[in-house]
């Protein structure tokens, strides 16, 4: 029964669902990195004094570096991994477009 229901689902829906899981996993990885690193390094009297690239050390390793990696990953995902799908047309709007042209 469950297999039959799964088969009836459109290919574009199944692809979107796979991409959804990728997003959720990516979010979790960066959340663990940022919150985990900063929770252990951003507090404490000495932390603000240590500077890397002009930033407090915890900002450099807990925010700036993951941000740069997340940016690269987003670009790679959008350009190379995300699949194109035919989104369809709305009948009423297509007619209006045709009439206009």
């Amino acid at each position: 029964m469950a297999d039959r229901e799964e088969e009836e689902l459109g290919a574009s829906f199944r692809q979107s669902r796979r991409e959804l899981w990728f997003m959720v996993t990516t979010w979790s990885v960066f959340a663990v990195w940022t919150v985990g690193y900063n929770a252990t390094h951003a507090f404490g009297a000495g932390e603000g004094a240590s500077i890397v690239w002009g930033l407090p050390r915890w900002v450099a390793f807990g925010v700036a570096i993951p941000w740069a990696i997340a940016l690269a990953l987003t670009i790679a995902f959008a350009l190379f991994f995300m699949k194109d799908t035919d989104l369809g047309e709305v009948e009423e709007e297509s007619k209006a477009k045709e009439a206009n042209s």
Partner: protein
Amino acid sequence: MTALVSFGIYLVFVFVLAAVANREGKGKSFLSEYFLGSRGIGVWAFAFTYAATSASGGSFMGFPSLIYTHGWVLAWWIAGYMVVPLVALGLLAKRINQVGRIAGAITVPELLRRRFASNAVGNVATVLVVFFLFFFLMAQFKAGAEIMATLLEDVPVYREAVVAVENLSDGLPWVGAADPDYLLCLLFFAVSVIIYTAYGGFRAVVWTDVMQGIVMGIGVIVMLVLTLIQVGGLERATRELAEMTPPEFVEVAVVAGAASGEEKRFPRGTWLKTQDGDIVRLKEAATIPARAIESEMIEALRLTSEGDEERVEASGEIEKGIHARPGDVVDSYAFGANEKGVYTRAPGPSRDNPGGFLTVLLAISFFAFWNFSGAGQPSYMVRQMAFRDTITLRRAMVMVALYFSLIYFPLVVIFTAARILLPGMEIHPDRVMPEMAAALTQNAGIPWLAGLLVAAPFAAVMSSVDSFLLLVSSGVVRDVYQQSINPRASERRMRMLSYAVTVAVGIFGMLAVLHPPQFLQHLIVFASAGLGACFLMPMVFALYWPRMSGRGAIAGMVVGGAIVLALYLAGFLLTGQFGEYLLGGLHPFIWATGLSAAAIVFVSLADRPPEEGLRRRFFGGPGNRAGGPKSL
């Protein structure tokens, strides 16, 4: 004055774009064009309208004010934005666009209504959209008026206009009690946005968003360069920040050397020295009456950092011939008072919270909040229904990712450094952005550039207000009037009604914000949390879970909205101020979203399964859809 001219040129461009957009929309299906740009939005337009709508008055007014007040910890607070383009666009965009086309929906409530073939779902969604968006509108109107007030405060024509407005509004109920500066700016700002939004519709909003997005981007980059030059580099700025301690708030009386026959006024922001050599800044205007030598006690800020004191002394801004007599301490920081390094580490100083500004649990909340609350905003959802094809989506995702990285992290750099260039802004932190723009350009000898820099937050505010205005009016016109009152209304009638409702919503929003709450960012976070909690989970499940029922959708929206309202109400009752109650240390959005998801699953499973036709239509392949019902 030159700043005013460049700002005026910017406004003219906005109106020209609205006029061109109105011409472009002629001959197309009116409602689809007016509220959704005929689903033909390309890469640049989609990327910038998405980014510009996200970067609202909160990003350019409230966020800088928080950075200034709490320091580098705001880098962690905003860090969730590193994955916002991936998560917020990737989570819903492709599916929402596709389902919107299958349903023929123009608005978010309409999409939900048709997905579940239920008028009740659409009506609940409309009520919640209108309710929470109204708070957003209020916050943006306030931000727009504040920016204008800062830009125009020294312009003689403006001062005369303020006096005229004061005379005209004097004695009027509700309006007369508003600050005349604020009233005039609010009037000008609101009328400008209402005109171009009502006239040009969604396409005008998108085009102006592109221009405003570019202005914001350039504005931030220019400010970053000027800031780094003027503070002597980022490393030096961070080292100076590490030496700073938070100011104290004290009562002072302003004392003149001798009595005078005339009343003497000292505006808010005046710098004075006390007899002990401390430096204070007036938080409100002070008056020494005629034949008296001192004013009543008023609140002032006292600097506690040596570096700040030296900088203010060197600037020559301290008033001569008078001094301040200190009274009691009104308020010192609950966390971080007299502590060096508090601005460069977590949790950051806080006036109210003894645990500091950002706890670990709150940081987790915000990492989720920016991504998932963003994804749950109807203003973004409606944009995701409007892009042309998936190639547009993929390229826009790249642009938005680059854009957010260029905006948010640099803002943290700029406004942590602002503590060095502009000490004592805690007296009015929401104005730090325009004040910083003015100071940077003044110091660099290019005051005309202030117009462009101030246009950046102004653009951010405008690009959000116009989106919210259209969303609220589309809710009324399409979801209430056309769906429930007059389904056979002619296109001409719908056109006139759309214009009229957009204008009416704008005017109502303007009147509601004549006496705004103090902290802009609280209002914005409340509205974002409310909308995100109401719509994120219902929309995610509606797009990805075929078994979800209409009753499940209603339960998800109502539970999400109710939890946010309840926790803000609890916050108000416990503290007497507008703010959230952090149950278990977590932001209300987290609780509301989790319980909204649970309500959807529980109610849907308890309900009978949806019709097979609906499932085939929205989840099947193209071949299966034809057999499905048309729904509502």
